[in-house]
């Protein structure tokens, strides 16, 4: 449980910082091209707690999946889980692109950065979380 919490906190801190840098700095100009698709800055700030909860849910579920099916495989197993989850998520992004008028480059940059993000999250979780000895083969 202690390892689970450490893995969750470390991965959450990474995902939060990565999200701020990516969306707040690197992709800022692309978002500015389609202002009608986004809330105003003040509205976003008033709903910021949903971003925190959303990121926490992603990390919590990721660590849960790792702990219940991939634990023991270390960093490589974590990275593998991150890749599988993110490529399936890229499929979902394609679905959103099909129905929402997002710029194509936002989907491309978002998918590439999402893949890098989940690889790093997988590595962090794989490095920190270790199953209890009773569950080891």
């Amino acid at each position, binding site marked *: 449980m202690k390892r689970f919490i450490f893995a969750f906190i470390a991965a959450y801190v990474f995902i939060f910082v990565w999200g701020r840098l990516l969306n707040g700095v690197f992709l800022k100009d692309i978002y500015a091209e389609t202002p*009608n*698709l*986004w*809330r105003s800055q003040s*509205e*976003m700030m008033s*709903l*910021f707690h*949903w*971003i925190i*909860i*959303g*990121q*926490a*849910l*992603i990390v*919590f*579920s*990721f660590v*849960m*999946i790792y702990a*219940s*099916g*991939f634990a023991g495989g270390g960093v490589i197993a974590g990275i*593998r*889980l991150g890749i*599988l*989850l993110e*490529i*399936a*998520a*890229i*499929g*979902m*992004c*394609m*679905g*959103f*692109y*099909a*129905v*929402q*008028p997002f710029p194509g480059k936002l989907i491309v940059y978002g998918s590439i950065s999402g893949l890098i993000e989940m690889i790093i999250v997988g590595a962090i979780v794989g490095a920190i979380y270790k199953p209890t000895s009773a569950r080891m083969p």
Partner: protein
Amino acid sequence: MNWKKFFTAFIGAFIFLFVFGFLWYGTLMSSAHQEVPALLRSKPNYPWLILGHIVMAFFFTMLCVRFVPAGGVFASATLGILVGLVYAGPHLISFAVEPLTTKILWGWIAGAVIQFAIAGGIVGGIYKPSPAHITFVKERPK
């Protein structure tokens, strides 16, 4: 890996994900989506929609097979619920940055969890490891 079963499971998952998506997001949530017309294309881009579902179904099936190598409806459905929750996180983030309604937010979250739980059950029900990978242990005489 039992590739024949894998592809059968993948096709089953793809058909289910696509049909469920059409019914849940395209029909049941249609009126909710019409409240935010600026956020939607006038007509879906079907090639991207189909390709997206193929990618999603293929890698979700791969994940189920890695997670539950022996197959099994319950274990794969449990994984599906967790995967649905992983994808519910971005919906919450989208709600904070896009002018979506709460009805759409909760509809998307419930849709993701139900969709992947059932898709997981389908994959777990279809996929079985190849006989070469099953180890039989002879029972000791009592």
